[in-house]
């Protein structure tokens, strides 16, 4: 059996982590779940004005990073 290339390991790692995020979001939406949804923990972080500014700045940076460059 040939060794798995490092690149494939990297991609698998990203796929597993992104899948884990989706799984957490689904688990968070189950009744009685103690896990917060993305919206809930983002909302919590956005309670102070600085948190709100930084989260919105991060959103804009993602757009610039992926769509303008």
């Amino acid at each position: 059996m040939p060794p798995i290339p490092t690149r494939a390991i990297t991609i698998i790692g990203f796929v597993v982590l992104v899948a884990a995020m989706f799984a957490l979001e689904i688990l968070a939406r189950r009744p009685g779940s103690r896990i917060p949804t993305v919206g809930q923990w983002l909302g919590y972080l956005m309670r102070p004005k600085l948190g709100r500014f930084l989260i919105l700045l991060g959103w804009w940076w993602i757009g610039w990073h992926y769509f303008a460059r």
Partner: protein
Amino acid sequence: MARDGTPAPRDRPSSWPSRLARPRRPAHPVLAVAIGAGLAVYAWVAGSAAPFSRGAFLAVLIPGAILALLAYGRPPERIPPPEQLDVPGTSYWLIVLTAFFEWEASAYKDNSWPWHPSFTDLINPLLGPHVVKSAAILVWMLAGWALVRR
């Protein structure tokens, strides 16, 4: 129900039904359709801009400026944030996010591309087709609107 009157975890409602029961849409359905169509057209035009061009920069700058004005000038009705987060429940997110950023940071260490590509290196080719890039821009704008309401 717990003895102190606070709902036990099993008594807490799911996030799904509450969202479905209280949809936050514009008052008039025609307005909702018009806004959706306008965003789709904008995303389609923005998706055609060449990378590193002035058009691509403006295509990202304009939604950012509009949302900033809305967020600080005329904020919409916001979804009340939770008073506190469950620490063990939140720790799952922290573990996954920390692992993600560690995996991403290791791509930059030693400049190891193509053996350890960064997330951006993997995403950029997927955004090549015009329709995919436009759809991603549309999702990005809707995510921004969802954040402004938080």
